[in-house]
């Protein structure tokens, strides 16, 4: 029945149109942001004052949910006291503006804003209330931090959700502690500072900047692909080992048994 319907050229055209429409629609939405008034991946014309620019970007991309004063429009949270660090974290990881409706904002492969745009928005939001600044200074020097200390802090405070290898883990009701392998040092620092979503805030009293930098150092170590034991099986622990053991190793042993046991003819 389906096949016959497509023999009519008009129907086929219609079907193609329906298939393509959502995609172009989405594209249109994204390009509206980049080429519309005030907005811009194109750096040709934007206000030279970052605060003015940031305000424009904020009103265009954020205010419809978080309110013109960052007061929040239910169910969206108030962000006036979130500070520049939170804005930089959420926008640079592509979690904001919100994409798919899920139980939590999900990381995008690429942020929808350029670094300058993000900076401008972050600076503007910082003027709305009291919140932590982008920890550019504090991150400095993480390369020389104490990795062993970082490992201990990581295992005490982070591993219970992000897992021993930083691969992430499950939280309740479909929420997840994300995989940390793509996070930049600044983003990791910001996450500890502002505690996005279900994550607790780690103030400088609980976790001094030196320890935060040590954690960054350890996570950067975990990102290295070198694995002394060979294939790392995703560093998921015994689940992936068990699967590989059954289907990879034991499967081969049974195949050999069948081969040896084949009747000599």
């Amino acid at each position, binding site marked *: 029945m389906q096949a016959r319907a497509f023999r009519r050229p008009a129907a086929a055209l219609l079907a193609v149109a329906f298939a393509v429409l959502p995609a172009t629609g989405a594209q249109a939405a994204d390009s509206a942001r980049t080429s519309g008034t005030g907005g811009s991946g194109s750096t040709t014309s934007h206000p030279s004052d970052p605060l003015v620019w940031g305000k424009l970007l904020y009103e265009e991309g954020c205010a419809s949910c978080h309110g013109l004063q960052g007061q929040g429009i239910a169910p969206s949270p108030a962000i006036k006291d979130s500070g520049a660090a939170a804005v930089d974290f959420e926008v640079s990881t592509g979690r904001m503006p919100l994409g798919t409706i899920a139980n939590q904002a999900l990381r995008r492969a690429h942020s929808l804003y350029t670094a300058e745009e993000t900076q401008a928005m972050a600076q503007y939001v910082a003027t709305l209330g009291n919140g932590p600044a982008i920890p550019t200074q504090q991150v400095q020097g993480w390369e020389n931090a104490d990795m062993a200390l970082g490992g201990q802090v990581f295992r005490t405070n982070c591993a219970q959700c992000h897992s021993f290898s930083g691969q992430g883990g499950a939280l309740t009701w479909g929420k997840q502690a994300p995989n940390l392998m793509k996070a930049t040092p600044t983003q990791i620092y910001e996450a500890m500072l502002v505690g996005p979503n279900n994550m607790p805030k780690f103030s400088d009293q609980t976790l001094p900047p030196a320890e935060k930098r040590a954690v960054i150092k350890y996570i950067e170590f975990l990102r290295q692909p070198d694995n002394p034991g060979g294939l790392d*099986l995703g560093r998921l*622990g*015994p689940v992936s080992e068990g699967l590989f053991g059954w289907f990879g190793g034991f499967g081969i042993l049974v195949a050999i048994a069948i081969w040896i046991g084949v009747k000599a003819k």
Partner: protein
Amino acid sequence: MTPTTPLGRTAVALDERFAGAKGMRKLLNKVFPDHWSFMLGEIALYSFIVLLLSGVYLTLWFKPSMTEVVYNGSYMPLHGVRMSEAYASTLNISFDVRGGLLMRQIHHWAALFFVSSISVHMLRVFFTGAFRKPRELNWIIGVILLILAVVEGFAGYSLPDDLLSGTGLRIAQAIMLASPLFGTWMAFFVFGGEFPGLDFIPRLYTVHVLLIPLIFLGLIGAHVGMVFYQKHTQYPGPGRTNKNVVGYPLLPVYIAKAGGFFFAVFGVIATLGALVTINPVWLFGPYVPNQVSAGSQPDWYMGFLDGAVRIMPNWEVHLWSHTLSLNLVVPAMLMPTALIGLVVAYPWLEAWATGRTGEHHLLDRPRNVPTRTALGAAFLSFYLLLFIASGDDIISTTFHLAFNDITFLFRVLIFVVPVLVFWVTKRIALSLQRRDIDRLMHGNETGNVLRLPHGEFIEVHAPVNERDRARILSNPAIEPLPMPPATDAAGVRTPNYRAKRLQAKVSHFFYGDRIPMPSAEEIAAAQAHLDAGHHGHDELTH
């Protein structure tokens, strides 16, 4: 005739002193039946040998001590960290002992395969009925070996005192604590005080390298010895009866096959040990009781217990200021005890339901004993569901599902799926029997359609070959025991009436649904019909 070769002279010299030639000749001429599924137990034996060899190597450097030391080895991310000597020596083996990491990985992969092969071997034994009289005792030895293998594996997983193994031990201790009445006492006894304490790792080491391996050696000897003594079972086939063994002699065929297979098993394990990481203890870090990692799972063979605990509702009963933790008592104590009890009792249960006392040396084809096969499949589905439930967090993150929903789903599936699997498996087995009988009576479809001179079309059927015929005819088509009469003709009540009635009911459950085998005359008539060229189904030719 005196032998001239060095080997021959040695053999004669030995025989002159120990008179072993006669026994050896008998042993080497012993015939074993041939089938790939008979080699699954061998994988277990060979993994065990690999475990012994690699384990000895590891003992040369492992220090089973909870003494706190500061790590100064070559793994930089843990430099200067305080840890137990057990963990430090495991890191030392992994990074500073030549071939140490390879041996650790070989040992761990071999352990996984050891338990895998025992499990699969037992499934083969179960589904083919090899556990029946006279081999019930060997079945029980097998069950004990499996349980010991799991305990031994868990002990080995716990020894390095890393964060993952410590978490596992914490759960083991919690299960001990949850035991009614003596739980607290037992946990303090086993750990020598509060968890984790200093005593447990050295104690576990003795259990892991001495106690259980010794029991293994004894039981494996008994297990293999009994297979020799009672003779190996064989699959039905032409010329194979309950009173013979058709196969090849130990020398040279099986010595060569088994020897080669040993090296193949060793090779696969060594290759995995060299190429694939298992248990990267250095990433877990040392065990500290206030730390835990997401994705903490046990090795696969403990997965079903972990899964059961994960999906169990959080039920507790408070009685006279005592807490009965049903959330651990049910999934971690009652459930495994019930499973083991069922497995141990099964040979007697089935024999009782069958009501016969004969010996069985010819294996069953699983389809010919539909209820046993269905029970086995249902058991397996129950086990697998618990096993999968143990990875609920990984399922949750990999497939973006809420693990609250997954947990709820498993709570339903664990009761529904085994019943469905039982029913479906039984129907499939019965249908396969019908197909067998159909092939026996009407022959195999050849796909050739013949047009007869008068215009009729028939499909040509070929008689089944000798091997298939013997296999199909091996169907015992066991009948259920009849209901006993309540009283005999004289009106005297049947002795043990209730027990006999229960037996008849169980027998009906096992054998009530059966496909009767055609009688010898019917088979002969069908054969004559096929031979005479009247091919095919009657429906087609009429």
